[in-house]
């Protein structure tokens, strides 16, 4: 049989699959995917530079708007970086409140992914279900923080709003309901023979490859790597309460879905304990005021729903930072798609690409363009340029 012709399927930048603008180039031979090229940059907004023009109190608002789904993870890492640089301890009440808001976000983010995954597979029922249950989590977030997303809860030194006694019964009610519904959803997804067939053994990321591509978050934990910043580098209230890290070993899309669903249940467990501790604490400070801008460097890490977020801040004692650096989890996770989709069929490409729960808004890097919007350098060109420079300087091989 003659070798099949290689064809390129362009996906995007606007495609009905995901709401974000991204451009994928799938190279296929017949049904088989043999190459993937990802072009980022459609969502680059220049957050790091904007942060350098804002005061420390304003920065959490800016980084919150990096991504609308993990809109607590970025401020979480951000305030920790600033506190690290300034050497501030936050009051315990603030630590519990931070943890509660962070975990509420994890539940809604994972439910969102489960729904979208169902949608990609043509299972719109799963989508509708998951998003219906997610709605009540958003509502309780609105009650606690004042907004459905973009909570604006965090500030360097503590939190902006207290969780008052009256908010606790509805919160517990929502957790109870969420638990029941997530369990039901988990059972429905895990027992479904079609989903088993469709997802098992698809888009496998082996532990070796997971290490090679430095993936983080549920993507790593589904491939047998036990990494979770909440456990490895505890902060806020995470080491004052009991919870488990979910690790599976299969590395396929099914495992990734399972990790996320089980993590939702862990999250409700964490929130319940935090609420209990919050009740036992006396009413008190929620904010250790930051008097001056920090002089020095600080880092902050937080386990976002998609993996580790890392923020770095460097201050010179003034009100503004002199350098701000952000690394989002998707920048590593997206790259791992290069191996996960290879060899699979085109029909599985969509769900495999989506399985790492990519968030392009967080990840965007800038690319060089000429004025007509044409790409000047591809990744390979950049590597070549870099190698040539080393050669010019007399190094390299």
């Amino acid at each position, binding site marked *: 049989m003659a070798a099949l012709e290689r064809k390129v399927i362009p996906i995007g*930048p606007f495609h009905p699959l995901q709401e974000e603008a991204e451009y994928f180039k799938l190279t296929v031979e017949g049904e088989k995917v043999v190459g993937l090229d990802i072009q980022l940059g459609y969502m680059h*907004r220049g957050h790091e530079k904007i942060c350098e023009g804002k005061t420390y109190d304003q920065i959490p608002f800016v980084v919150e708007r990096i991504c609308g789904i993990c809109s607590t993870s970025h401020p979480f890492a951000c305030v920790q970086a600033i506190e690290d640089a300034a050497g501030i301890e936050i009051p315990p009440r603030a630590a519990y409140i931070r943890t509660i808001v962070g975990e509420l976000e994890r539940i809604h983010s994972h439910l969102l992914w489960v729904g979208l995954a169902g949608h990609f597979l043509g299972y719109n029922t799963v989508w509708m279900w998951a998003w219906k249950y997610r709605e009540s989590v958003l509502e309780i977030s609105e009650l606690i923080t004042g907004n459905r997303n973009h909570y604006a809860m965090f500030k360097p030194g503590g939190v902006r709003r207290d969780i008052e006694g009256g908010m606790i019964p509805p919160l517990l009610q929502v957790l109870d309901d969420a638990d029941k519904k997530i369990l039901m959803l988990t059972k429905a997804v895990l027992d479904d023979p079609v989903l088993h067939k469709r997802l098992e053994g698809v888009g496998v990321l082996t532990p070796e490859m997971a290490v090679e591509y430095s993936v983080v978050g549920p993507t790593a934990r589904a491939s047998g790597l036990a990494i979770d910043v909440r456990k490895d580098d505890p902060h806020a209230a995470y080491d004052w309460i009991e919870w488990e890290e979910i690790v599976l070993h299969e590395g396929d899309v099914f495992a990734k879905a399972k990790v996320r669903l089980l993590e939702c249940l862990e999250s409700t467990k964490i929130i319940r304990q935090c609420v209990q501790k919050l009740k036992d604490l006396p009413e008190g400070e929620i904010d250790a005021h930051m008097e001056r801008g920090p002089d020095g460097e600080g880092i902050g890490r937080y386990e976002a729903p998609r993996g580790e977020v890392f923020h770095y801040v460097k201050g010179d004692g003034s009100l503004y930072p002199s350098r701000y650096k952000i690394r989002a989890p998707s920048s590593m996770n997206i790259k791992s798609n290069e191996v996960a989709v290879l060899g699979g069929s085109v029909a599985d490409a969509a769900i495999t690409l989506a399985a790492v729960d990519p968030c392009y808004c967080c990840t965007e890097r800038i690319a060089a363009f000429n004025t007509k919007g044409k790409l000047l350098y591809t990744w390979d060109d950049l590597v070549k340029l870099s190698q040539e420079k080393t050669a010019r300087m007399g190094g390299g091989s």
Partner: protein
Amino acid sequence: MLKKLKKAALARSLWIYHVAASPCNNCDIEILDLLTPRFDVERFGLLLAASPRHADLLLVTGMVNKKVLDRVLRVYAQIPKPCVVAAVGSCAISGDLFVDSYNFAGPLDKHIPVDVYIGGCPPKPEAMILGVMRAIEKLKKLKDL
């Protein structure tokens, strides 16, 4: 007669195309939220279209950046006219806190005509429904339909 029918049909079956022009994703998620059981805008006959060539209403979210601008213009050119354009979220309306960004290409209405502005960061789903209803009214009033 035919015109009347066309108008009535369009007002009850508006197809939407959604362009994410460098948003933070939140506006987009809220738009998708509209389709889910809680808000369920499909009861008004609204449907998310997969191609701009099938759409009557264009929803643009996000601060339009320099790279995506070209694509937004292209999508706008592909939509059959007359159509209505809605700028969703403060980003698309004014640039929000990204006005200082080096990659900001200006508010949306600098590039394409905008009919409806839906403010908020992100706008509440109820606000979006209101905005879409305004868009339908606007479409009904168009003379050359």
